[in-house]
């Protein structure tokens, strides 16, 4: 018998390993290359191919907010807060916290683009995606794709993935 966690037919199998996972930003290692943004956009594109995502498809919004101030730089994405203000403020139920995994998930089909989440996010990491149907866009921890693209491609380990106990998870 296939265990649920190993059964690709079971959607829980994809989600279960994500329980308690968090992306940790280590600002002192960020050198501002913005490779994370490129791979976030690619990962969430139709083709998931870097050239196509940038050249032939309508270029998406990255789930990462990049900041630069003098020598300091920071690439930050949704923190998947334990008590998310964006979920509390959402007028459609598009923004939800998954009790199982602790992930804050956003359903763009339900989203009304009212920007209540943009207003309440304390980190300012939910973006209005103004191309096409105006909806909010934010980090989904790449659950559908398996491993966060920003973590995988950060050349300097400024973005890392840890489990609930804080132990580093590598691809």
């Amino acid at each position, binding site marked *: 018998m296939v265990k649920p966690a190993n059964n690709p037919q079971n959607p829980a199998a994809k989600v279960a390993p994500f329980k308690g996972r968090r992306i940790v930003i280590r600002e*002192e290692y960020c050198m501002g290359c913005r490779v994370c943004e490129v791979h976030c956009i690619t990962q969430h594109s139709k083709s998931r191919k870097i050239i196509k995502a940038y050249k032939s498809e309508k270029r998406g919004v990255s789930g990462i907010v990049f900041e*630069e101030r003098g020598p300091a730089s920071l690439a930050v994405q949704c923190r998947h807060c334990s008590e998310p203000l964006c979920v509390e403020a959402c*007028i459609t139920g598009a923004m939800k916290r998954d009790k199982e995994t602790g992930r804050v998930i956003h359903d763009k089909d339900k989203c009304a683009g*009212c*920007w209540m989440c943009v*207003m309440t996010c304390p*980190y300012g990491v939910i973006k209005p995606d103004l191309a096409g149907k105006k909806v909010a866009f934010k980090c989904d921890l790449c659950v559908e794709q398996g491993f966060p693209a920003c973590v995988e491609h950060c050349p300097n380990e400024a973005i890392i993935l840890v489990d609930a106990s804080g132990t580093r998870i590598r691809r």
Partner: protein
Amino acid sequence: MNVKYLIIGNSVAGVNCAEAIRESDGKGTIAMVSDERETNYSRPLIARYLGGRFKRDQLSFREPGFYEENGVKLLTGKKAVKLDTVGRSVRLDDGAMIEYEKLLIATGGTPIIPKISGLRPGIKGVFTFARLADVDAIVAHMERNKTKEAVVVGGGLIGLKATEGLLERGIKVRIVEMAERILPNTFDPAASDLIENRLKAAGCAIYKDNVVKKLVCSGDRVKSVVLKGGQRLPGGLLVLAIGVRPNLELVNGTKIKTDRGISVDRHMLTSVPNVYAAGDCAQGFDFLSLADSVIAIWPVAARQGKIAGHNMAGRAEIYPGLFAMNAVQILDAPTISFGTTNPPPDAGYTVLSRMDPETGVYRKIVLKDNLVAGVILINAIERAGIYGMLIREKVDVSSFKSEMLDDDFGLLALPRQVLKHVVKDEGIEM
């Protein structure tokens, strides 16, 4: 009927209350009473529904199975008419009695009807804009009368959302606003101007510093209105959107203390034991003014409902107090505002602002003693939440206030100690 928890009202405060109760008490019986027919819909979405961008089945803010899954007995289309706080019971308009152990009053707000000569019950073509039933009535009226023109009374957020919905249906809209500018309570003159120009470009006519004095009817149907100065505006549809006041019907005549709204403490408890209130009907702690006030916005109702629910279920939780905040997209111009946006002169406020006439980007920060007291952002809302956090966390902005209007203002501008405190355990190492 006899329940442990009774919730009057089925909008965001009521729903959040039920959810919070279930976090602590999986078994206690919950009943919710609503005088509306719908199972669940999001009130702010009624403008989208009027405009046709959202269909009726897209209006709910919880999944269809929400009530069953949470073991909530939902009674729709029933109005709570009599509250007995001694006998702990509520009578409904169909005569049914519900006894409770803990009660939440989340009856929301009631639209204020201005005094207009000739306005009486039974006049066709005059509507408020607060509930889904209002939109249904407006749409039915427009279809029956092939309405082409409308007058919206009130240039506040509700009036403008109604306007937008009507514009999307191809209706010519005339807005009548009592103040000398639109959005007088939300924005400052510069921001009001910016939005006014957008509305005019979309074909709206705006009559400021003006009120509707008289209805001109043909039989029982409104045909046009007469303004204060005698000017006559055509329109077979009149939308009254001058504001809402707390709905106190159920508590009038009881011992429950009211002021503008139902007075509540930091547990959302009213002056009477076992009776709580939350949302647009409640007057609770205001984080910015430090007084009690009615802040009729979605996030306040959500939080108050949640806090009430926890306390009703025996888990002591304190309401931290929120403040006025609004996110509104008006004719493709995204806007977000917080707190005191138009402070009185000589009251100790400092204002930072920058307007770019080319792009229509406007940012304004209101400071008091180097703390953020108010914010307006138009056409540049991306990092808006950071400003809200600065208010909530009472961050002294003196070291970075010169950067607060910049396009690239963000977390890195904050002093290390502040950022460390703010991000706490949320996974940013500084």
